[in-house]
């Protein structure tokens, strides 16, 4: 946001040109981002239902009170939090391992990198359908068969998506499969921009591999790591497609999420105001996560 071009004299018609250049984007952002966000705040304070004969009126915090007291919505928030708590560390660690692996100077790394990244280009709706079949119940289900094979029949076949304890982890596993390549690529770019001299310096001090990783790689990777963790956290709160397609929030709300509940409120009950309140809650959760994570980074910087 630094002021630029202070030295250069303003060109003739520059203001008009700039306005014309910026106008389409600014108009779009105003109409389709800023206005809807304002609308979300406004609608959430009313009792609006689509197609309802009741007159819309201001009801204050009532929708928020109702939404936050609803056990299903509480479960949805818990599920999103669980999702983030498991997927963020697991996926980030896995992405780091994969990035380190494909960063080796060995033959064929380009191929491995492409294979690990491939699921990222798959639409989540398709991934959800393929994995629904992978999680098929009974000994013939692919995952059940694989588990039976590696444990020599020690694990009985599961019905992953209809099991209260397994359904959410099943969705997590699938999401990690689809998303880890994205993080890997970001971290790989980070790895490759670490100056080689740092490793050479470490080598002259006879630092071992682990010590190099601990004192050179990790600190140098801090920014990309924080970025990927942040993106994954926000994604964890946005989970919707998988749930809509694979479990519809079940069994017994075990996999429901905030966005799934918001869409249910609109589609099943035409409760636009309630759904608006839910998305505002969603927004504040995401904002809080972002702020906490940023504060954590800043602290770390001061300590370092």
């Amino acid at each position, binding site marked *: 946001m630094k002021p*630029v071009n202070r030295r250069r004299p*303003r060109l003739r*018609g*520059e*203001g008009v*040109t700039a*306005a014309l*250049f*910026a106008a*389409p984007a600014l108009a*779009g*952002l105003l109409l*389709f*981002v*800023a206005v*809807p*966000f304002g*609308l*979300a705040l406004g*609608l959430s304070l009313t009792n609006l239902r689509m197609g309802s004969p009741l007159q819309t009126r201001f009801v204050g915090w009532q929708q928020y009170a109702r939404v936050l007291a609803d056990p299903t919505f509480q479960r949805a928030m818990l599920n999103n939090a669980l999702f983030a708590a498991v997927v963020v560390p697991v996926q980030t660690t896995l992405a780091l391992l*994969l990035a380190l*692996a494909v*960063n080796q*100077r*060995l033959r064929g790394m380009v191929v*491995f990198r*492409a*294979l690990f*990244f*491939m699921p990222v*280009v798959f*639409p*989540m709706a*398709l991934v959800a*359908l*393929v994995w629904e*079949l*992978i999680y*098929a119940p009974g*000994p*013939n289900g*692919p995952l059940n068969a694989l588990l039976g094979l590696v444990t020599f029949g020690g694990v009985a076949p599961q019905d992953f998506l209809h099991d209260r304890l397994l359904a959410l982890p099943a969705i997590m596993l699938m999401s990690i*499969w689809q998303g880890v390549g994205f993080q890997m690529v*970001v971290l*790989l*770019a980070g*790895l490759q*921009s670490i100056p080689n001299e740092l*490793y050479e310096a470490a080598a002259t001090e006879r630092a071992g591999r682990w010590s190099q990783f601990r004192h050179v790689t990790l600190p140098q990777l801090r920014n*990309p790591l*924080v*970025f990927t963790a942040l*993106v994954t956290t926000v994604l964890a709160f946005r989970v*919707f*497609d998988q749930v*809509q397609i694979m479990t519809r929030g079940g069994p017994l709300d075990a996999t429901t999420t905030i*966005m799934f509940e918001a869409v249910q409120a*609109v589609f099943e009950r035409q409760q636009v105001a309630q759904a608006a309140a839910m*998305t505002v809650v969603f*927004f504040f959760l995401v904002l809080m996560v972002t702020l906490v994570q940023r504060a954590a980074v800043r602290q770390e910087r001061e300590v370092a």
Partner: protein
Amino acid sequence: MRPARTPPPVTVRRRRPVIAALNYALLVIAAAAFVSPIAFMVAGSLKPDERVLAEAGSWQAVWPREASLQNYRDVFDRVPFGRYFLNSVVITGTIVLGGLVVNSLAGYAFARLRWRGRDALLGVVLALMVLPLQSIAVPLFYEVTILGWRDTYTAQILPFVANASAVYLFYSFFLGLPRELEEAAWTDRAGMLRTFLEVVVPNAKPAFATVAVVLFLFFWGLFLWPLLVTIGPEVRPLPVAIAHFQTLPPLKWGDIMAFGVMMVTPVLVLFLVFQRWFVQGVAASGRKG
């Protein structure tokens, strides 16, 4: 920000062959975990429907004994796949092309031109970046319904052409370009639009590629929004169409897998051809952190 790419660090001194073999073995196992669901989908699409699940627990799950294209024919018989595909192409294509034009112009106005209110508006754009689509989907749905845009291309395209993150990405890229480029053109009294098109754009290919890749991946797979605003098959894009296809009786997994293969193949081809841009685009989108 940092010096140009350096070769990867020399972690491999002289390895014993056993360790090298182990290293590859681990990589191959990991690769199998990433590839097998995809192989499972492709194999399933080539088999008679009843065998998809019956053989799902054996190695034939990923390697069919005999292959037929019957499931692919079934898809075309049962649903207007061509129409769905066209819808996705039109919607994603327009968003990507429109987004490149609109957001690069805005990014340029913020980075290089002088006008009143610029810094304040840039602050607004930065603030809007933290609003994911999900947090405005419900009110936007309401807005689109009031405008009478449900079940149209317009509802699926127009709201997404302007993109705060894309504006920011262009803005920061243009800031990093040497200013002398344009100053020479300006002293020649070339117009600002012509300078932008002929001098700036050719030097900003990485930024355009990054934005194109990120927008394409996001909108080709977008599910929540078209699920909300589409009703019939006329403007239904592929992700909603495949979910809908699964709910159409009779449930035939072979057909669904064939649908999936056809839906993802063009993206995979694009990915393999433009792999460098995909990978760099994704990596660059992460560099602003």
